[in-house]
């Protein structure tokens, strides 16, 4: 626990040290998306103030935050730790690989939840939308952050070298961002795209958040999404632990 808190503190200090970059990533980038796509484009689509499209894409932007923040906090720090050798310093700390893995995932969950909260506040401020309750979006943010933290480890560590891991990571990031029902709802898609979208984890997260923001709008069943998310985290955790041990237990990476 001490190690996890120390590592979280380290990540927060490092981000505070580059405050402008952190603010750009956490606030400016999603705010621009929300303004351009939610306010301006949404307004044009509806010929008025555009609450319809805004209600579709607002939760999608929160879902993108839940995906990208853990990718940066877990996968990003792992890769930069490899290139700058900070990772070697963490591996030399007197903790087990399991503790290091847990600390990394905890930082991913913290960053994902924090980032989702900031974007949710921006959605409220720019689009005037807020969820009907807090429990469902919080569960989706925490569960989604855990899932994407584990996924980033698997994607980065399965290939033999970090550069190949990064290639795979970049290859997956684009479809998950744009084809995972973030800028449109699943109900707007026709087959086969509606079926293909079901292969992407962001689809479930964005649809779950739509259920939290506007339960009366069409969306995938939130109960099934929460169960699926829990199952996905349970299945991915041992695979991430195995990849972590395989690459870092014998530090050839």
């Amino acid at each position, binding site marked *: 626990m001490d190690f996890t808190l120390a590592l979280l503190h*380290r990540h927060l*200090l490092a981000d505070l040290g580059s405050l402008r970059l952190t603010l750009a990533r956490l606030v400016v980038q999603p705010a621009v998306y929300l303004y351009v796509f939610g306010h301006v484009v949404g307004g044009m689509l509806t010929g008025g103030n555009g609450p319809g499209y805004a209600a579709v894409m607002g939760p999608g932007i929160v879902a993108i935050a839940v995906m990208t923040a853990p990718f940066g906090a877990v996968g990003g720090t792992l890769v930069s730790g490899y290139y700058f*050798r*900070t990772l070697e310093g963490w591996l*030399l*700390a*007197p903790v087990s690989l399991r503790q290091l893995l847990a600390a990394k995932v905890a930082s991913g969950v913290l960053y994902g939840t924090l980032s989702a909260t900031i974007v949710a506040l921006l959605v409220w401020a720019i689009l005037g939308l807020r969820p009907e309750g807090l429990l469902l979006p919080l569960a989706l943010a925490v569960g989604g952050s855990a899932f994407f933290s584990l996924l980033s480890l698997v994607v980065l560590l399965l290939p033999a070298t970090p550069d190949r891991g990064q290639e795979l990571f970049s290859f997956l990031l684009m479809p998950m961002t744009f084809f995972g029902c973030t800028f449109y709802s699943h109900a707007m898609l026709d087959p086969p795209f509606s079926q293909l979208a079901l292969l992407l984890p962001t689809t479930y997260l964005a649809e779950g958040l739509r259920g939290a923001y506007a339960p009366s709008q069409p969306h995938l069943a939130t109960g099934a999404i929460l169960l699926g998310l829990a199952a996905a985290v349970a299945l991915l955790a041992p695979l991430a632990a195995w990849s972590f041990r395989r690459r870092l237990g014998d530090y050839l990476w």
Partner: protein
Amino acid sequence: MAAIEMEGLVRDYPGGLRALDGVSLTVAEGEIFGLLGVNGAGKSTLIKVITTLLRPSAGRVRVLGRDPCREAVAVKRQIGVVPQENNLDNELTVRRNLEFHCRYAGLPRRLFAPRVEQWLETLELAPKADARIMQLSGGTRRKVMLAKAFLTAPRLLVLDEPTSGLDPAVRARVWAAITAFRARGGTVFLSSHDLDEVERLCDRTGVLHDGRLQAVERLAGMAARTDRVVEATFRRAVGT
């Protein structure tokens, strides 16, 4: 008890490169052992095995009586490491690097805070304490890494070319710190290119060449030191 014991240690890399080929060595507690070797001889691989970062392909290793593969946490708790390349946290200041190193090791602040100040002073890092690592010269980064190695009061120091890039005055301070560490009962495993450093500090020296330990010599007594026994051993072992 021996501080380091290895028997028939082999380490192969993917692609078939054999970096260590049957290394057997015992380093006694309280000893300063110097490992010499040209680039690519296998010194850093050997150090990575001792410090738990790499697993042996074959053979047996014990560090302070423990298996570095199966009891890695217990081994890491008792060693201080200066790797060959900078592994400092570039995004933090010098002081934060030292503090987080102690926090990762689970030390309470009341214990590590005075130690951090002490090592900042000892290695003349105090004026740079609040500078980020990225702003430091290579020599200053080396000093921060040395301070880290000493901070957690380890029983064994594993140093991979610890004074490379340091000016003579700081090098002398580091040597004094290493000698004082040994006087308190600590063990030092030191890899170096610097024959003078090995001669001055070490009780014994070994030469690693093509992954094999070619020669181990005792350096006790001034006569042996002035005879440049280390250089002779090194030249004999690598055939130059």
